[in-house]
């Protein structure tokens, strides 16, 4: 029977499937960070359990780490405690750690692919919902809770019920100024934040094939924002070219053998999915969110919905509540709305191409007066490569802050945050109430839209500055 990419990987990793029980699924790669792991290691100690395969777990620190300088002196006491505990846990349990000053350290979902740890056909988990990022390589990658982190440390396995499959097909090709971020925001707006619940998404179609690896990661990263367990893209020559020569990628004969295996990792012709959704990539425009979940968004020139036109009373009330929190008027487009902060970074859009795209737009321009722009590379590697290309200078000259790698203002755990009432255009993944700081208000958008809005001092269609769309008054 023809199989989907998901089914091939799932079937190859089922250790055991007893009746009336979830499958025991083998985990190839486990990624760990400081915030969701301490209680898991405590659990191992209490039970006297060792780590089963410490060489298959890799740790980094990213959520609470400072971006101003890489030093404990820039951290609060609680953050320092989490860092110290991760250091001790990795030492005691034999796990490789990218420590605070390790040049390779960075956001867990940026480091894994960059190091070549993330490979096609793998099962990959991490105590972090954006683990779906790694699906860009044709891996089955999903976020887990801390109890499950302990399960993987102890048994290299997880108990999992088999998810359903959803194919998301992007026909055509993206227009200029429209990016992978806009593709995923458009999908989430279409199917809602619960639209993918219980499913693993496979992204297919010419627009997906045309994306580079970093853009595929952006696409898969926000699958969780549609409620999906995971997102994935079948590996191809683009994937293999990205992987070749990475520190943990196979070499020599092993590389050739891996390629042979990886080339089989696509859905068979005629394989069936539980659901299929098609979108026209050519019709997509730059997207932005106006609300307090990632589905509350639309094309940047489209008016914000009007609660009075919502027939369902619950939805009307929810929209009213959202617009109250966001302090936005219905019926008007978000374009033109003033912006206080612009955040460029995160596991969604903190990779080199994201920084390049924003820098290209900012070159020779200035961040508008009164706007604070923060550029936070996804890893130490991204930061060094950007500096080698002079991108840091472009950002500095434009008036933006150039920081060290970390999750930073995406979830505001490290002191990088919005003040109450501030509006941010953010390249991150969540616009939940107070996510980027208590009382803060987030508009999610692409790096291009973020950079353009920083220059304009207000939300703006980046194509205006790229010269693709005539300026409208």
């Amino acid at each position: 029977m023809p199989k989907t990419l998901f089914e091939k990987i799932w079937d190859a990793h089922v250790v055991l499937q007893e009746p009336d029980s979830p499958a025991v699924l083998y985990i190839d790669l486990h990624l760990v960070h400081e915030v969701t792991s301490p209680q898991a290691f405590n659990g191992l100690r209490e039970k006297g359990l060792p780590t089963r395969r410490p060489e298959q777990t890799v740790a980094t620190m990213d959520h609470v780490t400072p971006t101003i300088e890489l030093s404990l002196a820039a951290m609060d006491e609680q953050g320092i405690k989490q860092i110290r505990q991760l250091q001790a846990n990795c030492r005691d349990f034999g796990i490789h750690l990218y420590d605070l000053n390790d040049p390779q350290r960075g956001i867990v979902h940026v480091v894994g692919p960059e190091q070549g740890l993330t490979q096609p056909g793998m099962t990959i988990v991490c105590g972090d919902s954006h683990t779906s990022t790694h699906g860009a390589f044709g891996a089955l990658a999903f976020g887990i809770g801390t109890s499950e982190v302990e399960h993987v440390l102890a048994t290299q396995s997880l108990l999992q019920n088999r998810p359903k499959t959803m194919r998301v097909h992007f026909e055509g090709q993206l227009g200029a100024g429209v990016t992978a971020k806009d593709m995923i925001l458009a999908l989430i707006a279409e199917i809602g934040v619960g639209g993918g619940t219980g499913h693993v998404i496979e992204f297919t179609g010419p627009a997906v094939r045309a994306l580079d690896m970093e853009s595929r990661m952006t696409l898969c990263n926000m699958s969780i924002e549609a409620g999906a367990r995971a997102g994935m893209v079948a590996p191809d020559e683009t994937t293999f070219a990205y992987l070749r020569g990475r520190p943990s990628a196979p070499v020599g004969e092993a590389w050739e053998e891996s390629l042979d295996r990886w080339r089989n990792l696509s859905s068979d012709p005629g394989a069936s999915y539980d659901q299929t959704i098609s979108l026209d990539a050519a019709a997509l425009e730059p997207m932005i969110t106006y609300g307090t979940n990632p589905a509350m968004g639309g094309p940047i020139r489209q008016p914000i919905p009007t609660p009075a036109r919502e027939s369902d009373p619950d939805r009307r009330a929810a929209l009213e509540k959202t617009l109250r929190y966001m302090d936005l008027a219905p019926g008007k487009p978000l374009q033109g709305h003033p912006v206080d902060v612009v955040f460029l970074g995160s596991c969604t859009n903190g990779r080199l191409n994201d920084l390049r795209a924003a820098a290209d737009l900012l070159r020779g321009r200035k961040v508008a007066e009164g706007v604070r722009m923060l550029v936070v590379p996804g890893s130490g590697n991204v930061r060094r490569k950007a500096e080698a290309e002079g991108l840091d200078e472009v950002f500095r000259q434009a008036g933006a802050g150039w920081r060290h790698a970390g999750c930073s203002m995406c979830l505001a755990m490290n002191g990088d945050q919005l003040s109450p009432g501030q509006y941010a255009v953010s390249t991150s993944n969540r616009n939940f109430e107070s996510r980027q700081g208590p009382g803060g208000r987030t508009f999610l958008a692409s790096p291009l839209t973020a950079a353009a809005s920083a220059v304009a001092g207000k939300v703006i269609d980046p194509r205006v500055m790229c010269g693709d769309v005539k300026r409208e008054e």
Partner: protein
Amino acid sequence: MNPFKTLTSPVIPLLRDDIDTDQIIPARYLKVTDKAGLAEGLFAGWQYLDDGDPNPDFPLNQPQYAEAQILLAGDNFGCGSSREHAPWALAGWGIRAILATSFADIFYNNALKNGLLPVTVDTETHAKLAAALDSAPSLEVRIDLPAQTVKLPDGTEAAFPLDPFSKTCLLEGIDQLGYLLKHEAEIAAFEGSEE
């Protein structure tokens, strides 16, 4: 983990859809290395006023719900971040079951591992319960895990789904890790066949 069999309790209405785990417990409360004390941050953005005092309008702060152990929410409860701090905070406050029309996957799995029962109710039962709570805020609901039913005061009974494995674990208070450890030989054999 304490076994879960039946539970009769008032129901705290939190009738919103898509309550994300950042609302259940904001990230600034996650800088901990154990599971204790997280109830302080439960729904922090809604539980407290700007000056830090408890918000008297927030259902969890109302006296009739001081001892309540059941929460009623809308669709897609627990979406967003995978933080298990969310069920830890709910359980720490005293919640033992959540009734909702749907749950986000990771939250659902995390809840089950902490003796917190996610009860998926149909929209009709949900609407009926919400309306009943509107006129009688202190009404009690009975959850029967062995029978997999929720019983409203007017006698209405609704069945809810739960996979047999999770049900057994909850009923007997078993940690799922025990099951995996029991299959160490199969895991080792699988690893052997991979190499």
